[in-house]
């Protein structure tokens, strides 16, 4: 099967992922519509990053269905990858390539034309303009996170997947990431943000899905997850 099979930006049903004897994801269902931003919350090992990697086309699902941009990630992997912009949870950068070379590689493989202006603007927005031609091996953790968000956003993907985009990032970087998410939503993209930072997640996402032990426990409106009441509700879901 090929071609678009879903109108949703992200549609996941009965997703299971197994590594050897370990079940990392044991049944996740998600739906993110175009223009919607959803946060993925949960404890360490809840299956958030594995779910993101499945959606990014890196890890094939053991069973279940996953569509991004309408494409089945198992059957139409390349089309799904074209639809996605992904910021991985760890590293995610080639150590001896410069940010500009990362952008060039991204643009060339996605067939982008005239991307340079947007690329420069994104680098400036994330305060990376001054290091655009230095290899990323010497970057701090926060700089690497910021560049990963830039790379995910460059081609204005129809699905934006951000895994721990705020981890170790300074307030300027957090603000810039918020702007990227808002831009993507305004552009009609579906956004999925995996993070441990509930406060930030509820500020920028309309809905929150909570994973526990590889399973989705609940999908709640962000309003219910904000403040002290939200923190109590979140703890209750994790317990």
């Amino acid at each position, binding site marked *: 099967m090929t071609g678009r099979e879903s109108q949703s930006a992200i549609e996941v049903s009965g997703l299971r992922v197994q590594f050897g004897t370990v079940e990392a994801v044991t049944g996740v269902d998600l739906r993110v519509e175009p223009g919607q931003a959803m946060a993925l919350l949960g404890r360490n090992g809840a299956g958030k990053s594995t779910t993101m990697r499945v959606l990014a086309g890196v890890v094939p699902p053991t069973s279940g269905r996953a569509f991004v941009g309408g494409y089945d990630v198992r059957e139409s992997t390349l089309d799904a990858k074209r639809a996605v912009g992904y910021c991985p949870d760890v590293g995610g950068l080639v150590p001896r390539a410069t940010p500009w070379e990362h952008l060039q590689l991204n643009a060339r493989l*996605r067939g982008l034309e005239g991307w340079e202006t947007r690329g420069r603007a994104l680098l400036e927005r994330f305060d990376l303009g001054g290091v655009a031609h230095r290899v990323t091996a010497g970057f701090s953790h926060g700089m690497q996170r910021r560049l990963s968000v830039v790379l995910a956003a460059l081609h204005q993907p129809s699905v934006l997947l951000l895994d721990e985009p705020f981890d170790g990032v300074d307030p300027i970087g957090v603000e810039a990431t918020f702007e990227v998410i808002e831009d993507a939503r305004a552009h009609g993209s579906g956004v999925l943000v995996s993070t441990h930072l509930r406060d930030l997640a509820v500020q920028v996402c309309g809905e929150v899905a909570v994973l526990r032990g590889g399973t989705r426990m609940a999908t709640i409106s962000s309003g219910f997850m904000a403040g002290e009441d939200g923190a109590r509700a979140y703890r209750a879901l994790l317990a």
Partner: protein
Amino acid sequence: MGLVPTAPSSPDSASVRLSEVRRAVADLRHLLWFRAATLNRPRVVVIALAVFGAVTLLSATVPAWIDLDPAVLARATRALPAALAAVAAISVASAIAGGGGRELLARDPASIHPISPVTDHLGALVLAPLNTGWLLQTWLLLGFTAVVAGPERLLGVQLLTLAWVVAATVLGQVVAWGVEWVRRGPRGARVVRIGVAVALGVLAGVGATPDVRQVLVAGPARIVATAIERGSAGAIALITLTLLVGGGVLVVLGARLATLAATRMPRDEGRQETRAHAPRPTPSSPLAMMVRVDRASVWRSVPLRRGTLLLAIAPGLVALAGGLRWETLILLPGLVASGCVLLFGVNLWCLDGRGMLWRETLPVAPRTVLVARAWVLAEVLFGAALITIVLGSVRAGMPTPAEALAVVLALVTVVGQAVSAGLRWSEKSPYAVDLRSARATPAPPLTMVGYSLRLALTTTFTGLYFATLAALGRPLPMLAVAVVLLAISAFRIVRASRRWSDPVRRSAVVGVVAA
């Protein structure tokens, strides 16, 4: 090992106290236990170590009972000083190229532990034998010793030879820490580059002059060789003891130099990581773009650049100094290719590090990614082997047509073999490696020895085959063999490409490399 440079303000920061040595020995034991406990395939490691032990024992004993022709025996006796000197040369060169030798624990995981430079030094010494050049040369030396001494005096002279090997290995480590200390100092990289160039030039000049060549090995190596050949039991015992005491002194000196080197920041990496690389126009095709990024990953890495240049130039200079003829030069592409592929080719995906996770999400066919990586590996191997051949050809005279054909075919064939082996091993056994440090290797030390021996065996046989056919002046069988060997390599590359297209297999590699 991951040494955090310490402040040079402490007045005794470079001194080595006895308590520190005791603690370093204890830490070394813990680190060795940790390495042993975290082995992926402990049984394979035990078997490999048993094989190394058996080969060492056999090479040290069996040749003594072989009844050799007097002319061969005389040749072995003449070659003994050079074989002794070669162990020292290999120890020094390996330790310098490795920026202070091998690490018991990679820099990142080591950075959270209080591992002292003395422990680092002792760890590098313990791991020094896990080096194919060192192993082969030591086995060869033990064999020469057995041949020259015969069965009656075997035990005593082999102990002397082992004492020499130990002292030479420690000397290599001492020199390497000294060089590393200079390299990390002001204008250190330039000073070391000039020093190495001068040393290589002198060695080449000395080697090209037979009378002076004798002087090169006339020092301690000749004394030890004479003792092996006809020394009394007392003389052998005295020299063995002297070497062991000298080795002990060198261990302490090495610890001091390692401590001094640790007070300085490694400069190569810092320079690479802060240098601006002028942007170039975006290439016209995805493949060209990926080749550019992969090529940059090789040449901007300190250990890869240094290792490639060393492997390209050093054998060429040896060939130049020794005035090797074309029948021997045919063997060199195999030597260089099998050495260069060990720098990163046996774990090709480690060039991306954690960036592999992001690269894997880019919309491009897996085969294109693999072709780009194989292309870059092949061009590094071709380039290095070509430099060696060009240097070696200066004094080799005009090759016969058969010799010229053999060199070309050997070059193409061994590169094909090395690339296909690299692709296979990279998929089968990936490792998460940070190639920032000059001391990093793409796979654990023992695995590297296994790869190295297998490659050396394959490429040496290939070279010998072409050399023999060239000597017989048989171009057609040469072409036929080359076609068969290239077809085998091509088949293996295609098979590797097919495996790489499997998303499950690929995700497993990504999971390991980007861990």
